């Protein structure tokens, strides 16, 4: 009997295990094939795009910091870790980890956007009639994100469109179809700049077709008025179009797009009195598009704020002359390129206020980098687009048009935009508005170009410093600059665009990461790397 009982017991163990035994489903993952079979998971996929942009390898830090370090705005402290060592001396290589992380991150954004775009019809099929408008917007956002990320890729890894006459120089590979299985893996070659910029324009157009015309953002079925700064809406896409147009030197398009943003009335400029606090606040009035950092969702010690704050790494400083106490034992020199660009009464000087490097033996009385400083809750959203840039873009585009067309009305409109920002940031009576005389018509009958445009570039530098724009403004205008290296042996370099083949000038764009050249036979490296 005992024997029988035992065998029945053993047998029951066998019966309990049938064919379904091997069915184990992932619990914190969704199968690729299931993602676009519901609106809710499709929404989550769009949130995923923004989340990827929040990474420190993209807007969370590197895409904001690298264009500043590779320019005359930022330099590394002598008391520092190993971040941006190559870039600080314009000697970065194709093995630079920050570069490869950024490339990977940006393409991850692009491919995730591809999947949403390609599944537009599938999502529409499973959406209720009431959800159709939201689905359109979700796909529109994906187009907008793809335009943004390819534009960033194009700027970091390629020369501006106008670098060659017909944009035939190499830019980045365009991958537009979703890839879900290993059989679909691609090894693309780099597309030309003309092709990439055409695709970017196409994506902007497709986005604008789908995003609600009133600039609203539908979230989970209802219009949520709080989200228009943190999700891409019609006007942020127009602001992006203006930025792209400036970079492409399509001045008329820049004027049209920026005018529409300004006219929307959704955004207003920070007042002088509270700009420093307002800039750092979430959803502040001037913000057109910002990437959200929450207290429980942020890049933490890899964040821009942590890199900047003297309570964090604090190792990036506003450019200072390389002569410092540590290497010579003598007193500090006072040449500070960025800091000295501001007048004493310019509110923006507060973003690079003088202070001491919080580290034994660190610099004293140097410009600290403080646009993002919150390292306790990290609740500072990264400003990607804001209204001041839109004004400056329109002002610049109008000035360029005025020169080209010899048009005094356009000059007046341009002066209005530029002076608006200039006077708002520095209310001192000593700050003189730019006058039309700057571009006065000389006897030959055409407006003079350089002086006023140069002034606009200075205004752009002062307004947008530390926001990931400086290198690209230098690159597109081919403005020579001095790269100051404080942490090394004191060598500072003049980066001259006249000799574009110079090894340092070649480093005003980034190398294709070495891994991407090695694992893709069709990939061609940038010259100089």
């Amino acid at each position, binding site marked *: 009997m005992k024997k029988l009982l*035992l065998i029945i017991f053993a047998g029951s163990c066998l019966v309990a295990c049938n064919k379904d035994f*091997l069915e184990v489903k992932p619990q914190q993952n969704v199968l*690729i094939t299931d993602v676009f079979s519901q609106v809710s*998971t499709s929404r989550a996929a769009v949130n995923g795009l923004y989340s990827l942009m929040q990474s420190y390898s993209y807007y969370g830090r590197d895409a904001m910091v690298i264009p500043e370090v590779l320019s005359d705005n930022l330099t590394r402290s002598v008391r520092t870790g190993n971040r941006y060592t190559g870039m600080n001396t314009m000697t970065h290589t194709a093995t630079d980890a920050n570069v490869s992380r950024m490339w990977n991150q940006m*393409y991850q954004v692009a491919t995730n956007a591809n999947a949403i775009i390609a599944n537009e019809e599938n999502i529409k099929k499973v959406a209720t009639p009431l959800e159709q408008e939201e689905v359109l917007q979700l796909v529109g956002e994906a187009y907008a994100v793809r335009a943004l990320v390819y534009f960033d890729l194009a700027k970091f890894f390629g020369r501006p469109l106008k670098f060659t006459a017909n944009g035939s120089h190499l830019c980045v590979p365009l991958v537009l179809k979703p*890839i879900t299985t290993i059989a679909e893996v691609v090894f693309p070659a780099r597309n030309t700049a003309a092709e990439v910029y055409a695709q970017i324009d196409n994506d902007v157009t497709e986005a604008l077709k789908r995003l609600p015309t009133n600039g609203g953002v539908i979230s989970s079925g209802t219009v949520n008025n709080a989200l228009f700064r943190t999700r891409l809406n019609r006007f942020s896409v127009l602001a992006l179009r203006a930025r792209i147009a400036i970079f492409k030197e399509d001045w008329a398009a820049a004027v049209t797009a920026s005018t529409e943003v300004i006219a929307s009335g959704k955004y207003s400029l920070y007042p002088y009195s509270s700009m420093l606090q307002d800039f750092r606040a979430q959803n502040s009035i001037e913000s057109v598009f910002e990437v959200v950092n*929450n207290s429980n969702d942020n890049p933490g010690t890899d964040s821009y704020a942590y890199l900047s704050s003297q*309570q964090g790494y604090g190792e990036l400083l506003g450019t200072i002359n390389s002569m410092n106490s540590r290497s010579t034992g003598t007193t500090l020199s006072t040449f500070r390129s960025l800091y000295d660009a501001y007048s004493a009464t310019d509110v923006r000087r507060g973003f690079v206020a003088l202070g001491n490097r919080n580290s034994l033996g660190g610099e004293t009385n140097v410009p600290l980098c403080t646009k993002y400083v919150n390292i*306790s809750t990290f609740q500072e959203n990264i400003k990607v687009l804001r209204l001041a840039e839109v004004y400056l873009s329109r002002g610049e585009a109008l000035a360029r048009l005025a020169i080209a067309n010899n048009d005094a009305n356009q000059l007046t409109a341009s002066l209005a935009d530029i002076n608006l920002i200039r006077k708002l940031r520095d209310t001192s009576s000593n700050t003189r508005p730019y006058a039309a005389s700057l571009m006065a018509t000389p006897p030959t009958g055409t407006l003079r170009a350089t002086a006023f445009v140069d002034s606009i570039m200075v205004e752009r530098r002062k307004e947008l410093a530390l926001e990931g724009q400086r290198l690209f403004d230098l690159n597109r205008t081919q403005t020579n600059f001095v790269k100051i290296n404080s942490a090394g042996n004191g060598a500072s370099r003049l980066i001259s665009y006249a000799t574009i083949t110079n090894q340092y000038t070649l480093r005003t764009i980034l190398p294709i990461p070495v*891994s991407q050249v090695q694992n893709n036979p069709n990939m061609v490296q940038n010259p100089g790397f």
Partner: protein
Amino acid sequence: MKRIATIAALWGILLGVLPQAAFSQKAEPESRTIKGKVVLQRENTPLSNVSIQASKSKTGTVTAEDGTFSIVLKKGETLRFSRVDLQSETVSTFPSQSLTVQMQQAENNLEDVLVVAYSNQRKKTFTGSVGTIKNAVIESAPNASVQETMQGNIAGVQSTNGSGQPGSVPNIRIRGVGSINASAAPLYVIDGIPVVSGDISGLNSNTIAGLNANDIENLTVLKDASATSLYGSRAANGVVLITTKKGKAGKTKLGLIYQRGVTSNTIREEQKTLTTPQYLQYYKEGWVNAGNRANSFDSLLAANSIDPTINTDWFDKVLRQGNYTQYNLNASGGSDKTTYFLSGSYYKSDAPTKNIDYDKATYRLNINSEIAKSITIKGGLSGSFQRTSNFLGGSFFGNPVRAMYRLAPWLPVYKSDGVTYQLDYNSGYNPVAVLETTKRNAKTYNISAVLNPTVRLAKGLTFEGNYALDFNHAFRTIYYDPRVGNANVAAGGVISNYTQDIVNWITTNIVRYKTTIKDDHNLELFAGIEHQSRTDMDINIEVNGIAPGTNTPAGGSNPVLTTGTETGNRLMSKFLNGNYSYNDRFFVSGSIREDASSRFAKNFQSAVFWSVGAGWNISNEKFFKVDWVKELRIRASYGYTGNQGIDNFESQGLYSAGSDYDFRSGLTLSQLANDNLTWEKNIPFNLGLDFSLAKGRFSGSIEFYTRTSSNLLLSQSIPSVNGVTSITVNSGAMRNSGMELTLSSINIAPTTSRGFKWTTDFNITTNRNRITELDPAYPSGSYLRRVGVDFYTHFQRAYAGVNPDNGEQLWFTNTAKDSTTNVFTTALPRQAFGSASPKFYGGLTNSFTYNGFGLSFQLYAFWGNTIYDEYGYLQKTDANLGFSDQSNGMSRYEYERRWTTVGQKTDVPKPIFLGPTAGSSPESSRFLYDGSYLRLRDITLSYTIAPKMLSKWKINTARIYMRAQNLFTITKDKRFNTDPEVSVDGVMSQRPPVFRTVLFGLDINL
């Protein structure tokens, strides 16, 4: 006295041999008197009270005190010798002179009976390759985990401690590394349960360390196909089979082990970093070498606020002497029907690095009951509790070992008041403050329950079930003080709690059949079905902004992480095994197993694994008459096993949760689907020769093996424009081949039980690894991964030493190595250098006993490997960062050898203040070291108290001893600055160093 003999016998059993039986046959009279003596095998100690029974007449007798006997025997009868603690022997042929019968222990008969996959088998019939360790080596060893005890004791098993954190996971590699990206760790099976192994707390804890080594009856390492293929898809990396002790009928026995000791570091004085006077001298030279005047150095010091009177010994601040304790108590006994084994233990080892603490408590109960005539049920229940404390490792500022090597000696621990921590360097992570305030603790629990009924169904036919639960639970708490470390200051302190449960169920049902046909043909068959299901669940919480005085997440004001996951995998298997032997001369075995795993793609979810083996006992052949060869056996095996050591859902196309945005959930692509993903194939071949010479006093095995792994589960780098940076495919192949030699010798046998005895055990292993097939685009980082090279071939830029003319460091610019540069960035790209894998490794143990005194020592050699110091280029910066707070890891040995004068030949360059390598990450072969070392791994000096002195206390045996591990180490390369035992990948990585333990112990048996 009997017990002493028993213990002594344990040593003697090593060269187990069968009783000698003459082959000659003579005509015998009808009836005769047989006289003789029964002795313990090899030891020749007389055995008393052995009962002797004639086969037909049923006459019987017992042996006298001196082992002698006399019995009358009829023609054709055989004699059966038995005693409860010995293996019964039957003798059928009788010499004309006195008969000598050698018997061996019934218990601990490791040498004759092997514990192998799902069964026990006599060693001489086994065609596969296994390795075992003697109980005497496992028991009372001071190691946290029995895995460490394998080091130097089993040929073919490389056991390396990656760090000096007690109770952490050692790297165990059986016959080399067979996989590039999938797991290379073996499968652990304890009492029939394939258990959860590895770190489940995230603090480098080790579930296997939860097993009390003193509970181990048998540890067998299965190495080749014949031995492992029954474990199918998990067998490729070898299997460690552990059986725990069972009780024995008879008087209750009690055993006690008590050990106390200390732990200390093996780091020599010259391996430490510089003192302030040395440091400043070095920097002064650097200052001058950079083209400055020596007399401006003092003003430089002042400008950098360096106080030359401060001389902090960071090694002293981070290291210490630790304590070691072990207690173990067990009881066993029982009746004819029911026996039990019960044990409890406590073990504590604090590393000689501050805050690296470990202790554990274990409990075990094994019961064996014959509930009916043909039914026995074994039940096992064990529990363990491990506590681990450590600190952050690697390149974190908060890693005190990193700080110990890197912080300048002129940095003060305290501010001028002498009590407030100076936190203005190392990003606020003053290592003393870190050690004082940081708390990182993990508790790992295990409960294992196993029920194991055996039913005899008919003659030779049995059913056996094994139903088990292996439950593992981990709870980790981390506290970062709000005052220490810039990140923690900013966050207002950090507290995190992590907990994980792993539930591992297994059911196995086996039917066995065993038959003997015409005396000569032995056939053993078994077939089984097995199901295994594993589920892992975890919760992770982290908060910032903690309220003063609080230590749990409830004290946090800002939750930054709340997450939880669940995952699992299942395995469904059928298996069949057969062993056939003919006349104890020829042996053939075969096995087959089908595994279906939830991990693999639908198209390839199941596979069949198999093995075949054959053996020939040459010494049992009639023609074989070589007196001095007692045993000679040759065996070979071949088969196919698998490796499924990848993530649970690696074949599926997935989007991952967790990419949230603005408090809304997000999903992003994380993995591309591979519908064809399946097991790694592993084809092992083994050829072995076993021998026993000089009446069994000298014995050993030599084995040659190859292990060909193909269809490797490879993480293949793809262009990241595809949205992911890598995919998992079956691609690539690797081959391991080598030789293993194991020798055991009784050099001097004792003539009395307390006489002089000297035994030697030796083993050596060579392994040659080659990648035989690999995608040419497979990325090489700090290892060269190409066809034709060893898996662990270091890959670095070639350092050319120091220019004797000016002291600058040089790198080669061509492969011919006749052209150099002093500009790192123009040096030749990375080149292949030696491998992290040793050319050979092995252990040599000598034991001497005399009159109760014992001396035993094991030398362990690990030879021919290359170590890379991955932080070397950041530590040894030749002053190129100027007075940086954290870039000085130069050892005093190197300091003495730095270049100072023209013409000096050295490989340590001169310092150059803010020198040319600043910012260029000059990783090169300069930071590669010869990792060869020879170590006095273990030494024990003991005294076994004479039984006469103990009998009035009713103590059977008592032994007191001093024991030391890693007492003495010789390293070939003097340049590196920590213990030479580093992780299997040959990377020195700012981990707590492996250390030495010295202890006093007392073992008592009642």
